[in-house]
């Protein structure tokens, strides 16, 4: 027995020295605290980092504080005997800040009473660094998602929008819990062709062009791409859709297309006029050769007429190209008509057509853009003249310009007893590049006339029947202001 009793203390001493080595070499800061929060022991790492501070208050040693920390885990362990893990920031004797994970454990005496608390601080500086890195990259990803200059949504398996970026929310509203067709197109049911659905079904990327409507109802042209988001097993978990606003590109394209149409229309018109010029020149030349003065005269008229047409075509093109704003001033319509009346009558007599002008005495002065109104009147009158020239059915042709005042309007009528138009032609005459004159029209004249009247805040209507003739009724406000719409004026 004695032997045993002898060996046990010896073994106990070995154990103690062995465990003391373990205590000393534990890869963390270990300290033991009494009930007054004084440190009564510490391992080597503790001493190296915080100095020989046995007997000092732990809050002073670890944090340089003068009083106990709020939520002190040592205090809590004294109270309930449990571990109270927490994250803390310690400051070493060299002033280095060390983020640590703290665990506490009670040390009891033989009676089971907690007489001290051991604290273990594990350096989590590396973990913290990685966490911060992760958070930064997460924030960066969120920022990318939020700020990317297009509309992005992510749809879950229930086909409901789970996420949307800032640009989407600002343009289309808060979408969470809504369907894309509701947000993008204000529809109550899925679109007939749904690229999102196709991506769900096939797991493949789809690209498509859509017309979208913002929360304010504004129309947007968009290029949309859908792509699957897969989980670790490769199953489609969500679908992401990215829509790029291409409205401006489309507008530019349509402007280019309209320039293309203009060029086509002009070259078409010029070809017609060249034929007319060719014809005139041929007739003048052959008239001289055959000594036929009538033919020379007819040919020369043809040359003049076609040169005049080229001139007015060029003016139309310039007007169209500039799209000028109105320059409103006092217009004396009588004086304005007098300016072009002689030229018009000459052209009309060449076409065996009578010009009738009825200006009411009280026509007077009104506010408008004289240059634009002259262009508009000439366009309408020359159209009338063409309609008479092309009409072979009637013997006597006339065109008529009538103007009278009916406050707040100036009423202008341009009438002829020429060819007249069928319904289809009537409906299209104010469209850009529509011409009923075959090769000699550019489809600009009436389009521009309509625009001029519209800019004055007036209206233009046409009354026509094939064989009977045509009448244009123009209503211009007596005091035009630029950009007034007729509706505004009426209401």
């Amino acid at each position, binding site marked *: 027995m004695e032997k045993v009793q002898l060996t046990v203390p010896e073994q106990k001493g070995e154990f103690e020295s062995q465990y003391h080595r373990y205590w000393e070499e534990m890869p963390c800061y270990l300290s033991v605290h009494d009930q007054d929060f004084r440190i009564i022991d510490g391992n080597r790492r503790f001493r190296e980092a915080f100095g020989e501070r046995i007997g000092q208050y732990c809050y002073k040693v670890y944090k340089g504080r003068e009083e106990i920390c709020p939520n002190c885990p040592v205090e809590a362990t004294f109270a309930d005997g449990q571990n109270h893990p927490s994250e803390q920031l310690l400051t070493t004797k060299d002033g280095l800040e060390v983020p640590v994970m703290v665990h506490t454990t009670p040390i009891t005496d033989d009676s089971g009473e907690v007489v001290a608390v051991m604290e273990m601080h594990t350096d989590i500086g590396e973990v913290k660094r990685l966490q911060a890195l992760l958070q930064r990259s997460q924030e960066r990803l969120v920022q990318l998602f939020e700020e990317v200059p297009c509309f992005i949504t992510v749809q879950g398996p229930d086909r409901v929008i789970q996420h949307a970026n800032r640009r989407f929310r600002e343009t289309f509203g808060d979408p969470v819990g809504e369907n894309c067709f509701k947000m993008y197109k204000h529809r109550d049911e899925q679109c007939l062709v749904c690229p999102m659905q196709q991506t769900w079904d096939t797991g493949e990327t789809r690209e498509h062009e859509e017309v979208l409507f913002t929360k304010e109802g504004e129309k947007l042209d968009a290029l949309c791409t859908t792509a699957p988001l897969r989980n670790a097993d490769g199953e489609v978990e969500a679908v992401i859709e990215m829509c790029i606003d291409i409205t401006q590109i489309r507008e530019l394209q349509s402007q280019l297309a309209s320039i293309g149409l203009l060029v086509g229309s002009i070259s*078409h018109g010029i*070809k*017609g006029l*060249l*034929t*007319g010029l*060719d*014809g*005139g020149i*041929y*007739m003048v030349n*052959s008239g001289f050769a*055959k000594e036929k003065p009538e*033919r020379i005269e*007819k040919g020369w008229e*043809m040359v003049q*007429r*076609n040169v005049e047409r080229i001139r007015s075509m060029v003016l139309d093109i310039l007007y169209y190209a500039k799209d000028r704003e109105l320059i409103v001033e006092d217009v004396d319509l009588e004086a304005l008509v007098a300016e072009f009346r002689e030229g018009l009558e000459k052209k009309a007599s060449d076409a065996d057509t009578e010009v009738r002008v009825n200006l009411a005495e009280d026509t007077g002065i009104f506010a408008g853009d004289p240059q634009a109104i002259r262009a508009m009147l000439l366009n309408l009158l020359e159209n009338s003249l063409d309609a008479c*020239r*092309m009409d*072979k059915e009637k013997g006597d042709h006339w065109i008529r310009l009538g103007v009278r005042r009916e406050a707040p309007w100036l009423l202008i009528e341009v009438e002829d007893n020429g*060819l007249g138009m*069928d319904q289809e*032609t009537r409906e299209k005459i104010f469209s850009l590049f529509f011409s*009923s*004159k*075959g*090769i*000699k029209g550019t489809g600009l004249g009436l389009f521009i006339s309509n625009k001029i009247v519209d800019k004055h805040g007036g209206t233009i209507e046409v009354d026509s029947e*094939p064989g009977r003739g045509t009448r244009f009724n123009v209503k211009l406000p007596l005091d035009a202001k630029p950009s007034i719409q007729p509706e505004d004026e009426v209401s």
Partner: protein
Amino acid sequence: MNETDRRVLIVEDDPDIVDYLSFFLEDEGYAVEAASRCSTAREMMDDFRPEVILIDALLPGKSGLELLVSLRRDPQWSDLPMVVVTGNDTLLEDDCQSYLGAFEGVRGPDGVLGKPVDRESLLAVLKTLLDDTKPN
């Protein structure tokens, strides 16, 4: 007009072009009549009995190609040489084909001339078409 003159009917709505082509072809020894509409052209054909017809592709109301189809379908005129004149010459070949393609069995125009009409080409086309037929 002499009995031996070859007869050309011009279907064209632009009076300048009608005048021009009429004077020119008459100078070249053709007998010419002109119509500004398809319907007028049809009315004139029985009396005038044209040997070749020049049709403007873009006639008001009814297009020149419609006139061509209706004449091709008329046994009396189906073999009449027809020349289409157009300002839109680049599009014409395709347009003619796609338009006429809709009418099965309808033969297209025997010649196509672009505007502005080249006088030498016009004479060449008429000569080729009329040399194949004897005066009647």
